[in-house]
């Protein structure tokens, strides 16, 4: 297939359509609304379900209901809307139904603004809802990557009967780039729906999908089951990309748009003869702790760059475990760092590293 010029929000929505997504429930919020608009047109064309909910609270519970039916279902939103979905996400995690959600992050807290941010790391990666659960979180840095990750997200969600969140910032939602869309998959046939899904108790015992375990001992058994599943996820689903780390003395760790900006800064610094490389986590949960730990064995200093006050920073520190100093550069409030700013940080670090 040929590349075409695609806007991020439209690209991931179409990728979901092609992944066989059978229902989309959402609520308009900038900067992800084009995804909802794309689904409003596309899903009925294909005889699939689109419904604009009365709120994000309702949207995620509609997603929950459709997921119980064993169909591929998703929603998308942006930070304040995702906050409203936290209750539903906790119930979905507690019910082990597969769901895909895209969060196109914007500036906050509160109403904040509609500019790109990475302020939802803690909310998504650390689990903003109540109880012990984790969300598989994938962070794209390009339009092609948001397409590929969204397309695959449905398989991953079903493999683990878990929630997969595509965590991207407003610039990825809004920008246009040439990218290639994947082939179209048909929606799942009714008879192929999972053996746990609610299809009507015909010729079998009734099925119940619930997140309640009133007996603490039973709840703990369920919690332990989730922990076991997390171990599998942590063993199988770590993703990252690395750039020029082989001989690096300084490593940058940055994800999504911040990672992409840092890539330019790394090339700029290399031109100046500074031995710097980049590790860009693609999966934020599971986090590439081991890989960053290995980098820490090799480099003198690590710089974390985020469009937040330092949220992934905590995970990098855990990975580095005190082996080398970890510095931080962040822009907040919808401000995006320029490659030059990050380059200056690298220069400073290089002086410290070789002082």
């Amino acid at each position, binding site marked *: 297939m040929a590349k075409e010029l695609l806007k991020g929000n439209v690209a991931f929505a179409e990728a979901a359509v092609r992944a066989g997504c*059978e*229902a989309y*429930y959402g609520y308009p919020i900038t900067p992800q609304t084009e995804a909802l608009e794309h689904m409003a047109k596309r899903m009925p064309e294909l005889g699939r*379900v689109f*419904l604009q*909910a*009365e*709120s994000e*609270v*309702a*949207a995620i*519970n*509609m*997603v*929950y*209901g*459709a*997921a*119980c*039916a064993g*169909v591929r*279902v998703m929603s998308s939103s942006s930070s304040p809307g995702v906050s409203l979905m936290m*209750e*539903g996400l906790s*119930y979905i995690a507690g*019910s082990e139904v597969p769901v895909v959600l895209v969060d196109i992050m914007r500036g906050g807290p509160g109403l904040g603004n509609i500019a790109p941010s990475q302020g939802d790391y803690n909310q998504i990666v650390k689990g903003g809802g109540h109880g012990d659960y984790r969300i598989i979180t994938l962070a794209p840095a390009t339009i092609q990557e948001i397409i590929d990750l969204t397309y695959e997200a449905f398989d991953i969600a079903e493999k683990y009967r878990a929630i997969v969140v595509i965590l991207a910032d407003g610039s990825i939602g809004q920008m246009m780039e040439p990218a290639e869309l994947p082939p179209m998959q048909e929606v799942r046939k009714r008879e192929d729906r999972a053996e746990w899904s*609610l*299809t*009507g*108790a*015909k*010729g079998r015992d*009734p*099925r*119940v*999908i*619930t*997140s*309640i375990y009133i007996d603490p001992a039973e709840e703990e058994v369920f919690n332990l089951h989730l922990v076991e599943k997390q171990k599998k996820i942590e063993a199988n689903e770590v993703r990252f990309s690395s750039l020029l780390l082989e001989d690096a003395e300084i490593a940058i760790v940055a994800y999504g748009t911040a990672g992409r900006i840092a890539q330019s800064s790394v090339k700029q610094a290399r031109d100046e003869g500074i031995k710097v490389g980049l590790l860009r986590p693609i999966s934020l949960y599971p986090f590439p702790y081991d890989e960053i730990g290995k980098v820490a064995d090799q480099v003198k200093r690590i710089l974390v760059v985020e469009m937040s006050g330092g949220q992934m920073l905590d995970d990098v520190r855990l990975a580095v475990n005190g082996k080398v100093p970890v510095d931080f550069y962040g822009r907040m409030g919808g401000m995006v760092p320029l490659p030059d700013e990050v380059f200056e940080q690298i220069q400073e670090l290089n002086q410290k590293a070789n002082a």
Partner: protein
Amino acid sequence: MTDKKMVEALIFSKPESLTDVPTHYCPGCTHGVAHRLIAETIDEMGMRENTVGVAPVGCSVFAYNYFNMDFAEAAHGRAPAMATGFKRVNPDMNVFTYQGDGDLASIGAAEILHAAGRGEMITVIFINNAIYGMTGGQMAPTTLPGQKTTSSPLGRDIESHGFPLKMCEILSQLDGSAYIVRRSLHDPANIRKAKKAIRQAFEVQRQGLGFSMVELLSNCPTNWKMTAEDSLEWIEENMIPYFPLGDFKVHPAIAKSKKG
């Protein structure tokens, strides 16, 4: 000598749509009656194998243990949204929610209003007993003026707490609603009427006429702090005057079939 043969005839049994499990409900509670009416109706309509129920948060949170059919358990108040999501991908299935007054009229007020407004093809069984049962007797959105609860110990003061919500009256105003009625479970005659209403509501859904809801005035002997018998009288004497029984909206197609 002629043998007088004993003839065994089954005249009353548990509906297939109920499981053979003792409920956790308090003695004298009408939840069991409501469950049975729904189960009998689903049996009579032959829809058990094509039905999915959505249970609420509240006393009936474990409703799925008592219904012999597929069930999902919603977050507090979100059953209409969950049922919407499910029904839209299974338009040929029979989908109902079972919700109490706190669930439906307080924390889930937005979800029920918009499900009705969209004309969502689901059936809602609304248990109104004017109190929060599961958490131990706090004020509900349907608690009557002056009614004592643990969070309105001096009686519901309308100056401070405002007025009870009359959900049938509200939802029947919406163009999406097709069948909105209020019945009571306080005596056998009313229980029979309640069952007929549940049948009509499922019929509305089967025919795709729009949103349907049956409100059932119910008791809570435990938290009302009275005997089961007194609680049934209390429904008649106190609840019905404030929440009048009747048909608030009946789709013409159903009204016609009723006459016919």
